[in-house]
């Protein structure tokens, strides 16, 4: 899995696919991304979850 941040949204890509599987324009809890660093932190947590979901919970809420 990998991602890119553009136009204030996180785009996630599954391995071997060119079209994004994820388009996340805001945090799943509905709040806007504070800044790019905020989006990147969530995206890193998302990739960790998608890579090893048993070890890493989906980042559904801001802790």
């Amino acid at each position, binding site marked *: 899995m990998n991602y890119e941040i553009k136009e204030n949204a996180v785009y996630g890509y599954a391995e071997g696919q060119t079209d994004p599987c*994820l388009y996340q324009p805001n945090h799943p809890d509905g709040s806007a991304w504070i800044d790019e660093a905020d989006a990147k932190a969530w995206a890193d947590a998302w990739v960790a979850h998608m890579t090893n*979901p048993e070890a890493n919970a*989906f980042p559904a809420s801001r802790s």
Partner: protein
Amino acid sequence: MSRNIPLGFLAGSVGPLKFSVLGGYAVDLVHQGAIYADLANAKYFGFGASATGASTTSYNRSTNGTSWSTGTLPTSTTWARAATNGTRVVVTSDGATANGAYTDNGTTWTSTAIWSANFNTRDIIYDGTRFIAVASESTSNLSYSTTGASWTRIDITSQTGLWAIGFGGGRYIALHSSSLATHKTCTSDPTVNNNWSDITLPSAQNWQGVLFGNGIWVAFASDVIAYSGNGTTWTSVTPPANIDGAERAAKMFYYGGKFYYGRGIGSAGSNLKVYSSTNGATWNLEADFAQGSSGSDISFFGGWADGPDRIIGFGYNSGTNGADSGMVGIK
């Protein structure tokens, strides 16, 4: 020649659903499936397990959605999801059995072998051409039939079993039954296993259901919703209230431009709340009312029957007392 058009007929608009508690089923069930079909002897159907969550031959049926009687199915099992082609209802079982059943009049049923072994059927749809059922066993877990009487099984996934299936806009989506992010989709003939390819949802969840409406796909798990405009790129959103932890594909429905789900909040006597969304992204509280005070309350809904003038939600209780109440949304 001029013609006055009465108000209410303009633009084919759909009004909001008016929700209230529905009580008075003929038999308390842990409802796991429901359907409406305009059959001769019954039109609204609620299927499930017995009040204690065990096998049963009973189901709830009604010709008008207000007065109920008990029907008898041909096998004692835990009945679940149902589908209709308009003239026939097919009901399935999640109770490790090869057979489902179908009826053309609402009261007389024929047992039908959906699977070649004892499988747990988790979902069934009618796509306009065929019934398609999916099961949580790991092989040959998609079964299809044009009539509901004779079925063919295929393998569409090399991973684990299937839990839910949806169809709309020329696309099929089938969800796996384990906590996975990768699922299956098809945009051509679903009866050919090579026509199915992978899609990736935003998280590895026990995804419970997927449905299509107004150009939007919505998939839901216990505490996550995902939506997509094309079925391949998804956005995740946290719902305002958990849809529930038990895996039942029937908890959400689409009507008149909105997706809906309803649920209680766990304790006896607690309120039922209904949430809706036009886009899958923003969910609004649509109704909030006290559950019926008689008997057992609802944790969430095991099935929805979409009739001509009302949509009935059949209550799902934990299996100690079944549910003797549900919800009705008047159109």
